[in-house]
């Protein structure tokens, strides 16, 4: 397993947590990049790679809150495991099915993360931030898949201008 790309993904996650979260946030709603990256890895890589990457993502994500580090590692590696097995059992060839799969995974992660972090008004936070964050992440996933499948290319974008 080549490890350097995954370290770069983790650095990207660190960059997003430090700078990107507020930059791309809309009224507090932001992208769940960790969940999206874990699901993307589980889509294209093996189960163990996805699980370890989820574990590492959980550690990086929870670095500012060390007491929740284990929980986040467990949740993200679990997400990778579940996402991989769902992908294996379902036909995820079409773009819409992939998007639905991403949306479900991100929403699941947001729900569990909100439960772990605790606090009041769980439902309110889930609907206001979790659900809208999952939609926001799905939009990012749509762009990702369109780029990945060559529907949108840099050449095409340049041709517009």
């Amino acid at each position: 397993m080549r490890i350097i790309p995954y370290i770069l993904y983790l650095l990207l996650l660190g960059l997003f947590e430090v700078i990107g979260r507020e930059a791309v946030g809309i009224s507090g709603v932001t992208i769940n990049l960790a969940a999206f990256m874990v699901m993307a890895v589980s889509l294209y890589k093996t189960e163990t790679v996805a699980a370890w990457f989820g574990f590492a993502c959980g550690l990086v994500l929870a670095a500012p809150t060390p007491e929740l580090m284990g929980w986040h590692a467990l949740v993200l590696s679990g997400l990778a495991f579940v996402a991989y097995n769902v992908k294996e059992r379902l036909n995820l060839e079409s773009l819409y099915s992939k998007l639905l799969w991403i949306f479900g995974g991100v929403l699941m992660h947001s729900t569990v993360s909100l439960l772990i972090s605790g606090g009041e008004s769980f439902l309110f936070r889930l609907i206001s931030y979790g659900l809208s964050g999952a939609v926001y992440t799905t939009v990012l996933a749509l762009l990702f898949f369109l780029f990945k499948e060559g529907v949108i290319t840099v050449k095409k974008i340049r041709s517009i201008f």
Partner: protein
Amino acid sequence: MNWISNLFSRYGRNVHLITIAILSVVLTYGGYTIGDRHGDAPASLDDRQSLTDDPPPFNVNRLLADGLITVFYYPFHRIENSVADLIRVQEENREYHEALVEVSVRLSMLEEARLENDRLRDILGFDPPPTYTLLPAEVVSITGEIVPVSATINRGAEDSVFVNQPIINQDGLIGRVSTVMPHYATIQLLTDPANRVASRLVTSRDMGIAKYVVGEGLILDNFPVQAEVREGDRVVSSGLGGVYPAGLKVGAVRSVFREEEAVFTTVHLDPAVDFLRLDELFILRQGRQ
């Protein structure tokens, strides 16, 4: 060690997943329990004292978090802070630049006021010719290709300014009013070739006509060849012609040119007034107010 490789080759997937699960559980409990005496609130003051005396408890999660933050967060925090500093410094630089420009303009205005003050102090010692009064004016604009030939002043018919009134400053004669508008007037300067001033030498009282010739400068024309003239002699208006009163400084003799068998001598003059630096001037009005 053979059994480990056997275990991985047979149950590789399960071993990986179980390892992840065990590590996660260890980290979950490690965050609260391993040597963490700060997890419970101290019961008494003595307990609190003993907590401060003890070495910090070993905590796997904090150690790990410290390393992760150093690698994955800190570099970006540095970048973010650097960018924020750069933006702040840029903003401060802009503010300082604005302040500098403002101060520079103020300084320039103060310098201008100081020079004006000096000029006005000089003017205070300047008396108009008898039976004339002075009306101060400021130059609004000056026109002319190489040398200025006319200027516009901020006084006009509303200020009782009339055509042909002489214009002077503390140095000497500048010209005369040529056109009058309600609030402005145009001056025909001495440097206009069409302008002529009947003049005379202060010392010998010999007379000529001061006029400006393009390429030669201010000259005293029609000056008698037999007249005594030396470099540095002062030239003033003679009062003939009815426009300029007698005694206004026109200039000083720079050089004398005598042609053989000529009736007149050409005398070159240095103008009393620096026409390139006209600023405050006075309109000479006849009659005491």
